[in-house]
């Protein structure tokens, strides 16, 4: 089965530094997403992306966050100036059509640790 791949699996950074988390969605999917899970908490929606634009974003996704599809295969999440509370597992996901009754395919996640 095709899968979403994420790199790196672990990222350690100092507070205030910029990080870029990378994802390769399933090749024929058109909609891309980032979710995160802080340890002990729920998986939370961050942002959805279609046709090189953000479709929807949560209140978590503030000006420190940005997403980009720099080429035909990668999808990235950038955190400009990391804070301690950004430490979490970040999941990339994709879907074919972005419909409300459609399943999302998730990657294995990037564990971000901000020190």
């Amino acid at each position, binding site marked *: 089965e095709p899968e979403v791949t994420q790199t790196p699996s672990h990222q350690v950074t100092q507070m205030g530094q910029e990080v870029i988390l990378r994802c390769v969605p399933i090749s024929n999917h058109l*909609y891309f997403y980032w979710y995160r899970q802080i340890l002990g908490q*729920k*998986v939370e929606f961050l942002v959805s992306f279609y046709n090189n634009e953000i479709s*929807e974003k949560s209140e978590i996704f503030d000006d420190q966050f940005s997403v980009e599809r720099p080429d035909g295969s990668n999808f990235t999440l950038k955190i400009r100036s990391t804070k301690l509370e950004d430490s979490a597992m970040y999941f990339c996901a994709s879907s074919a059509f972005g419909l*409300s009754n459609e399943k*999302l395919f*998730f990657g294995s*996640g990037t564990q971000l640790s901000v020190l």
Partner: protein
Amino acid sequence: DQQVKQNSPSLSVQEGRISILNCDYTNSMFDYFLWYKKYPAEGPTFLISISSIKDKNEDGRFTVFLNKSAKHLSLHIVPSQPGDSAVYFCAASGETGGTSYGKLTFGQGTILTVHP
């Protein structure tokens, strides 16, 4: 945000028996519900889903039941196998009434342990 709740943090069952995982939601705009399974160091994997126009959906050993009036859904696994041991997440979409743009609202998860 308590729109989707899984009140049981953990469940332990014997191999071969039924596992029942429960989920409650508060937002009546949700119209599509999914169960995901998650193993350690992996991302959530889709298991089964149900639309709000149905009350039951079955796929092999997995059945999801939806009670719209009670805003409750449950996942039944019969028979349970040790390989089913994982964290199970309930998720819901559709609160924007149409195109949800992939925004799923997740429950906290239930850790299922199936003993041989």
